[in-house]
Structures are given as structure tokens and as C-alpha cells.
């Protein structure tokens, strides 16, 4: 133990100012997104005089942001002692943080493009507990960040180092996954699939007041009215229709491109290595991300394959860790990547092999799933959609024509096929020390968890289910909760008893 005075307070590199500016910009963007839309609409309807003042206002805002960032940098100090990290930060609201190495959940080292030439990086520390928070030390030397991570994570669990030769890092890392550009392109295509579908449909069908104003403004700026008139005069309505269709097609092509670009920036040069029981992944085109995770911290594996990924025969694996607090706690920023260690675009065989790597003796490809009760699953899941659909169809049927009732069997038919498909996918399995839960429609999501890591189990029955001997089983893990619907009550009871037995007879720490 060195005396406290040896570890002094350090200041970070001035480049951290850029980091603070970007942080402020990001915060402003996510928290002010609604305001931003309104502002856009306002600018759209503003005259030149107002535009003048708006632009001046923006300049003032930018200067304020810069000043704030400089002050943030000047206020920022860090200090590392033998077992904790201390931080002093904040301009208006000054705070001093004290993080014990023990409480550190996850450490990410980012190398933003503006720091890479100088060998600097951003060290982000995620802590677990009720006072959940992510802190960043921006602008410290990369080597220092790496050695710090080694010290913090290495010192996080002194009780597991009972056999140093066997468990501790051997120094040479095993390469588990290396993704090619092609893999990453495929991941980009498959990743935000639902997201860009939503955007595309939103663009086509969204027509509320704001977007109208926005489009009007857009049209005015680029003289689209004239173009439309010109097209109509020259080629008639047909050409106009073609032009519109082409535009729509362009948007539909552009959106996946954006998604691919995103994947490329985030996952280019993806490498996953194992060193002892520490997994490390590094990736990124401009900004490099370097994450590490200890094997025992994995609470569950989520194997995902959506419709597009199914076409490409790829599976992604999420390594779920203890989720820190609720989603709402982490502010209005999207928390998708938080505590989410992703291994994307894997071929099925490799995905299965990797599952066995993360969870020893776990073979997802050999799991034999038990299905849930077909009748109740179908009846309930169809009724949820069919009843409102019937009510909606009732109005035009009574007012306009009884033929509208014909819509109902069509909807019912489609629903039947969809629900039946979902039923076929729904299943659960216990194999070895692991529980498996599967769900999906075209794609598949499989959650695998060590039985002994459960936190809590709920069994919930409606009166009808009670009579039919069925139940919903909900398994609460430290990372998330998984629900198995319409399970036979004997099976649910047995599942619960077994999982409790595994958890209560095991001395292994779940965290």
C-alpha cells in the first residue's frame, strides 16, 4: 500500500475539449429533438429578418457550448489510487466521484479519430448499483488506459484468483472471431432492419402538420414546384409518377446504405479475442472501440436472426450483462449499445461453437425444444388482434356495405398463418446447466442462460389457464426477463424447481 499522497490529481489532454463539445452537441440533439423539429418548422416559415436572428442565436449557442467545454476541461481532474478512481468534474454542478474498482461493471476504451494521431483515448467506466452512472476520462494516453483497465478489471475480483496459473491471463490471446468487410456489410443490411422499414413507411404515410411544413420548406428551397410542373408539362402525369416512384426507390435504397455505413464505422476490423477468461473486442473505422468482458459477468446469450439475416444465414450473439438500473434512468439517449457486447454476422456453425465458448458445454444447435400449448397460444394471440379488427370492420360494414365483413375472414386467415408460425417458433428447453427460450416469426431469437444465475421466477395464471393446467413462466435474470407463455403447469413447476435448485446449491457467484 502506497501512501495516499503519492497518487496525485491529474489533468487530461486539451483534446478532451472536443470530446466535451461533442458530448454537449449529442445531449442537445437527443434531449432537444422535439424542439429541433419545431425549430426547423419555424425556420421554414420565417422570413429573412427572422432567419438573421435565428442564425445569430445559433452562433451564440455555439460559443456558449465551446466556452462550457473549455471550462469542463479545466475543471476535470482524475486520480487513481490502489483500489479506486476519483474524479472531479462539473462546471455549474461540481461533483467529486469515487469509484471503487470492485463496483466497476464494464470498461470501454474508445479512440476517437481526433485523438488517434496523438495516441490518446477515452476510458469509459460503467458501474453497477442503484446509483448507476457511466463516467468517461477523455484524453488520456492509450497505453495508460489499457494498463488502467487491466488493473481495474484484474483487481475487481480478488476472490477468484485461487489458482493463478490456471485462471489468470496467459498473455497470449486466442482469436475467436475476425470479421471481413463482407461480414460487416451483411450486418449493416440486417441490423436496423425494422428501423428503416419504419422510417420508409413513415416517409410514405406520415403527413402531419409539421412534416408538411418541413416538406413545403424543402420544396421551396429547391424549387421542386417548378420541377414538378416542368415534368408534368413535358411528359404528362405518367412521367411525374415515374419520378415520384424513382424518388421513393432512391430513399429505400439509401436507407440500407446508411445502415451499412453505420455498421462499417462501428464494426470495421472487428476482432474478438479471449485471454484467460477475459473477452476483448475491438472494432471501428475512424473511432476505435475496445471493450472487454469477463466470462463470469455474462448473464445470458441472446442469439438473434431476423428475416434478412436468415436469408444471409447469419446470426448475431449479444452477451448480456447485468443491466444497470432502468432504461429511463440513462436519460433520453438511446441505450441500445449499453451493457451490450455484440458479436455480429456469424455463420450458424460458428455461432453455435462460440456459445460453447462463452458458456462451456452449451450446444444451442443440439437443443430440443418443447413447444407451448398450441390452442391457447393461437386463440389468445389471434383474439388480441382479431377483436379490434372486427370492431373496426363493423363500422364501414354497417354504414357502407355488408361486403366489408368479408375483410374479417381474410384478416383471420393471415393472422392464423402468422400466429401458427409464431407458435412453431415458441419453445423452451433445459440442457445441462442451461435454460433455452426461443421465440420468433420469420427470424428467431434464442436466449440461453445458466440456470443458476436466475434472480427470481414468477408463475402467473389466468382462471382459464388454471383450469386447463397452463401457465406463463417469467424468468428474471440480472440482465433481462424472459417469458415463456402457455407452458404446461407441471413443466413450469419443474423448470422452476430445477432452476432454484441449481441457484441454491451452487456456490458460484452470479455477478
Amino acid at each position, binding site marked *: 500500500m502506497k501512501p495516499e499522497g503519492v497518487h496525485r490529481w491529474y489533468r487530461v489532454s486539451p483534446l478532451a475539449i472536443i470530446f466535451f463539445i461533442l458530448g454537449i452537441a449529442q445531449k442537445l440533439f437527443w434531449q432537444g429533438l422535439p424542439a429541433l423539429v419545431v425549430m426547423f418548422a419555424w425556420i421554414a416559415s420565417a422570413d429573412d429578418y427572422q432567419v438573421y436572428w435565428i442564425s445569430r442565436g445559433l452562433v451564440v449557442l455555439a460559443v456558449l457550448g465551446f466556452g462550457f467545454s473549455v471550462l469542463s476541461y479545466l475543471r476535470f481532474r482524475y486520480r487513481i489510487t490502489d483500489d479506486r478512481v476519483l474524479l472531479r468534474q462539473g462546471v455549474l454542478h461540481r461533483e467529486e466521484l469515487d469509484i471503487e474498482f470492485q463496483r466497476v461493471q464494464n470498461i470501454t476504451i474508445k479512440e476517437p479519430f481526433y485523438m488517434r494521431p496523438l495516441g490518446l483515448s477515452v476510458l469509459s467506466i460503467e458501474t*453497477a448499483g*442503484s446509483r448507476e452512472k457511466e463516467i468517461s476520462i477523455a484524453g488520456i494516453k492509450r497505453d495508460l488506459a489499457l494498463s488502467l483497465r487491466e488493473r481495474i478489471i484484474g483487481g475487481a475480483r480478488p*476472490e477468484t484468483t485461487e*489458482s493463478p496459473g490456471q485462471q489468470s491471463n496467459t498473455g497470449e490471446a486466442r482469436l475467436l472471431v475476425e470479421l471481413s468487410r463482407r461480414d460487416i456489410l451483411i450486418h449493416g443490411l440486417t441490423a436496423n432492419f425494422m428501423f428503416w422499414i419504419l422510417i420508409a413507411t413513415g416517409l410514405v404515410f406520415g403527413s402531419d402538420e409539421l412534416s408538411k411544413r418541413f416538406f413545403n420548406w424543402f420544396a421551396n428551397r429547391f424549387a421542386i414546384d417548378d420541377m414538378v410542373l416542368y415534368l408534368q408539362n413535358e411528359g404528362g402525369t405518367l412521367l411525374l409518377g415515374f419520378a415520384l416512384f424513382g424518388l421513393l426507390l432512391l430513399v429505400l435504397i439509401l436507407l440500407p446504405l446508411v445502415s451499412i455505413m453505420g455498421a462499417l464505422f462501428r464494426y470495421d476490423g472487428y476482432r474478438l479475442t479471449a485471454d484467460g477468461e477475459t473477452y476483448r473486442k475491438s472494432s471501428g473505422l475512424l473511432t476505435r472501440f475496445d471493450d472487454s468482458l469477463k466470462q463470469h459477468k455474462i*448473464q445470458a446469450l441472446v442469439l438473434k436472426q431476423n428475416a434478412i439475416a436468415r436469408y444471409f444465414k447469419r446470426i448475431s450473439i449479444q452477451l448480456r450483462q*447485468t*443491466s444497470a*438500473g*432502468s*432504461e*429511463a*434512468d440513462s436519460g433520453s439517449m438511446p441505450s441500445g449499445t449499453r451493457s451490450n457486447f455484440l458479436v455480429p454476422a456469424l455463420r450458424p456453425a460458428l455461432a453455435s461453437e462460440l456459445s460453447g465458448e462463452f458458456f462451456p458445454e452449451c450446444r444451442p444447435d443440439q437443443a430440443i425444444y418443447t413447444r407451448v400449448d398450441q390452442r391457447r397460444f393461437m386463440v389468445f394471440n389471434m383474439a388480441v388482434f382479431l377483436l379490434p379488427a372486427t370492431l373496426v370492420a363493423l363500422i364501414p360494414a354497417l354504414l357502407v356495405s355488408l361486403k366489408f365483413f368479408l375483410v374479417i375472414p381474410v384478416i383471420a386467415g393471415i393472422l392464423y398463418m402468422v400466429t401458427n408460425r409464431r407458435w412453431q417458433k415458441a419453445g423452451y428447453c433445459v440442457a445441462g446447466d442451461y435454460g433455452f427460450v426461443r421465440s420468433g416469426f420469420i427470424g428467431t431469437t434464442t436466449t440461453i442462460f445458466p440456470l443458476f444465475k*436466475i*434472480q*427470481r*421466477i*414468477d*408463475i*402467473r*395464471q*389466468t*382462471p382459464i389457464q*388454471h383450469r386447463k393446467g397452463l401457465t406463463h413462466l417469467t424468468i*428474471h*435474470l*440480472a*440482465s*433481462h426477463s424472459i417469458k415463456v407463455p402457455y407452458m404446461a403447469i407441471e413443466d413450469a*413447476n*419443474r423448470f*422452476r*424447481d*430445477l432452476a*432454484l*435448485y441449481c*441457484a*441454491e446449491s451452487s*456456490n*458460484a*457467484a*452470479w*455477478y
Partner: protein
Amino acid sequence: MAFINLQIDTDELPRAEDLQMQPMAAAYQRESLTQVLLVFGPLVLLSIIPQLFPITPPILKSLLWLIPLGFLLIGGLVMLLVMKQIKVKGYALRDHDIAYRSGLFWRKTTLLLFSRVQHVEVSSGPLQRRFGLASLKFFTAGGSSVDLKIEGLLREDAEKLKEFILHRGAGGNET
């Protein structure tokens, strides 16, 4: 460490569904009924007030009696349901976990492991204090809110349970 993997006979595992649930404290019924009375009592009294004034068509006046009558009926029904609901509620302790059953229509049984409990909270509102009652709340990792809330325990029982569970949980955590 040698790897041992014994076969487990799942029929021989301790069965959680056979647990004898301990009913909630008797004072809990009185407290819940008082709560219903506090809501519906004033409503009934308020709806009687118009009867004190002369109202021209006598039929309207007698029709207005339907309002307090309705409140009485609904209040009585709520009381009945609350009583039934409390009868369903129950908890049971085992060596390593606690079971809690609740729900009149949607019956739910929760099993929570002592070793996963991060902290326990005993709380009681003004009405609960009058009846010497308290609620016990359990928090585990990952959950953003309360993971299990047991209402209607006697204050001293709640404190005892809290001590017991924290003690057990700490023992389970030490490897």
C-alpha cells in the same frame, strides 16, 4: 478443481408448489376494509346531501336516492373482492428463498432467492401504522423497480423477516 456433474432426479427436487402459504396478518383485512370505507363513506354521505333540500318533483328526489345506494353497492362489492383477494395472498419461507402468492383472478406466485436480494425496505403509511402493519419490499439486480412487495405484514414480523433474509442472503453470498 475436479468437475463433478451428478445426475439430478427432477422428481426428487423440493417442490415449490407444495408450499403451505402463511396467510397475511389479520389486521391487514381490517386495514384494507378501513381503506375502502375511507373512500366510499364520504361518497355515500356526500350523495345524501341533496335529500336535505326540497326538490320540486318528488320523483326526482326519490330517484336521487339511487346514487348513495349505488355507491353502497359498489363499496360492498369492492369490500368483498378485497377480502377474497387478501385470502388468496400468502407467503412462505424456505431455507434459501421466499415464495409469495397473490392475485384474485390472475394468480401469481413469485419465488425470490435470498442470495440475490440486494436490499430490503420496510415501509408503512399512516393507515398501516395505525394497524401496526408494514410492507416489505425486495430489490434484486437488474430490476429497475421493486421486485417483490409484500403488503400486510405486522411491523415486527416485517422487521424480523428483513433481518432473516439479509442474514441468509449474506451467508449465501460468501463463497
